[in-house]
């Protein structure tokens, strides 16, 4: 058993490649056999990943899913921000400049619209749950923007730790739901071309959610959605602790 652990821990990134490879193979077999290709193999793989992350989190009490299990630590590196961003940028290879220009204005509008809409929805939910403190309402609203904007805003305007934790949880729910929900609703919201993918990325904003959701819908759309989504968190961090907080304070 000792030998196992030594080899797995020392070669954790290589172990991650093997484990993810097997997971994807199983997912594609399942997609073929059980759904006759109706559900994309990568959608099943992502769902399996999320289920595994849930049990990993429950078993270890950590905050990085299966990566908290020592033998699977390499998944933390493979699925971490650095590798994610590297691969996202690589998907832009071969994208035509003209496609980007076509959706440019709609893409920019969608980023601001997306931040505002998610914030308002989150803030209204906070009010419905009985919050009256402007800092708390703003922080929960910002959490509905993304799980990064929530704590950044909360810390800047002095919200309580409980509220900040809540805002992170709201952002996580959003991110996971976008991963699972995108392939299911894609048909109904017209998500089948570069322009709507850019609008989609700007409206959703959660980079992880958009990255996984589009990968499970149509990998060709990934670079377009990812491009606008990566501006979203920055815009959220800009507006949350400033204009949005002032507006909420003025109302309450």
């Amino acid at each position, binding site marked *: 058993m000792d030998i196992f652990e030594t080899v797995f821990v020392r070669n954790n990134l290589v172990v991650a490649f093997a484990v993810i490879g097997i997971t*994807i193979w199983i997912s594609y077999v399942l997609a073929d056999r059980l759904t006759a290709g109706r559900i994309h193999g990568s959608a099943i793989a992502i*769902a*399996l*990943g999320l*289920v*595994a*992350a*849930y049990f990993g*989190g429950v078993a270890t009490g950590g*905050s990085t899913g299966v*990566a908290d299990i020592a033998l*699977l630590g390499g998944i933390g590196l*493979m699925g971490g921000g650095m*590798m*994610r*961003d*590297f*691969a996202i*940028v*690589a*998907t*832009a*290879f*071969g994208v035509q*400049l003209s496609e980007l220009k*076509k*959706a440019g*204005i*709609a893409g920019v509008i*969608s980023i601001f619209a*997306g931040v505002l809409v*998610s914030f308002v929805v*989150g803030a209204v*939910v*906070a009010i419905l*749950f009985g919050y009256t403190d402007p800092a708390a309402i703003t922080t929960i609203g910002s*959490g*509905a923007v993304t799980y990064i904007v929530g704590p950044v805003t909360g810390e800047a305007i002095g919200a309580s730790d409980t509220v900040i*934790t*809540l805002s992170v949880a*709201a952002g*996580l729910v959003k991110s*996971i*739901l976008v*991963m699972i*929900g995108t392939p299911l609703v894609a048909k109904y*919201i017209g998500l089948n071309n570069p*322009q*709507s993918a850019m609008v989609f990325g700007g*409206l959703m904003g959660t*980079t*992880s959610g958009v990255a996984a959701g589009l*990968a499970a819908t149509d990998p060709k759309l*990934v670079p377009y959605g*990812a491009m606008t989504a990566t*501006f979203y968190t*920055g*815009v959220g*961090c*800009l507006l949350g602790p400033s204009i949005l907080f002032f507006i909420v304070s003025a109302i309450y």
Partner: protein
Amino acid sequence: MIVYGVALLSGCLILGMLIGESIGVFLNVDANVGGVGIAMIFLVLASNSEKFKALTEGAAGSGIKFWSAMYIPIVVAMAARQDVAGATEGGLLAVVAGVAAVAVSFALVPVLSRIGSSAAGNED
């Protein structure tokens, strides 16, 4: 050489991240503003330009395509390291806020896409 393409990809990401970080400092925001998006624009410009042909064609191009193809496996690993347990522990408020934000945003996709296509239509 495969590594030339990988190096170009790395260069784009590093440059984009530096610019995104600088915008963050300039705006006094504790976040990288669009670093990845800016890096993607650099890669699109390079792959559409004659000058960078040596770094984007043949074997060098395969170096970039490899990482592009590794995107889905990396996303699966990313899903496996999310704090799913933490999200479910946030209770009803977190779930309602998250679900409502996603539902409204989904509904807006066709509305804003229409702005995009009508703007493009006017240009034509």
